């Protein structure tokens, strides 16, 4: 079998900045897991913009890769007032600082990155709905030469 599900995946954050943006740098941090995650959304990675140019003389588009973004991750969690990770999300929402993020899957490995925690509005739904939050993370490069994204494949 060569494909896997998200089962067993955890999401965790920390306010700490790694000493360097490597496996060792991130692994030196202690992360706090966000509990009751039901959907992880998009895992951060580069996605380039398309740039097009159309010369009216020949009608066809020329295309080039432009800038890129590391993306936005929207996570759905069931509201748990006792969860330390969700409490940390509230603190991070009120901060302008970037947070370290760890997404860990038992079969696919770990993905680390640096993101702004934009918020997690609550949705209580109706009587047949679990009350949830939609937490949004905005990933950013960490310097002009580094994305800050580190993927650690399982051994």
């Amino acid at each position: 079998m060569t494909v896997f599900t998200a089962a067993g995946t955890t999401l965790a954050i920390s306010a700490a900045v790694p000493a360097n943006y490597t496996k060792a740098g991130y692994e030196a941090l202690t992360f706090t897991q966000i509990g009751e995650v039901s959907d992880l959304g998009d895992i951060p990675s580069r996605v380039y913009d398309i740039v097009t140019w159309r010369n009216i003389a020949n009608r066809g588009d020329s295309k080039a890769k432009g800038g890129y973004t590391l993306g936005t991750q929207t996570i759905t969690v069931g509201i748990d007032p006792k969860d330390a990770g969700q409490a940390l999300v509230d603190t991070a929402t009120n901060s302008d600082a970037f947070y370290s993020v760890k997404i860990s899957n038992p079969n696919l490995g770990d993905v680390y990155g640096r993101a702004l925690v934009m918020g997690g509005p609550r949705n209580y739904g109706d009587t047949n709905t679990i009350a949830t939050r939609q937490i949004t993370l905005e990933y950013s490069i960490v310097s002009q030469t580094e994305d800050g994204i580190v993927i650690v494949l399982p051994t």
Partner: protein
Amino acid sequence: MIDTIAKRAFNLNGSDYAEGAKVPMPLQQFQDLEPTGLVERAPKPSKPKATAPARTRTKAAEPAAVPPAPTESQSPDMAD
């Protein structure tokens, strides 16, 4: 690792802690979680009073006998 106290019940990385429970964690994680109001630093345990070694009284050494210095009036040269 440092000792912290749970200010209210919470779940941290899969473990449940009751209010007032001692929660050991790395200093960096405490610095993350302190602004949430979930934990506070545990007071440092009071140091047990060091018991002083039992003193044994020893007799003070006798002061060395010093002959009295001769005074002018007692000087044999001056006696005549």
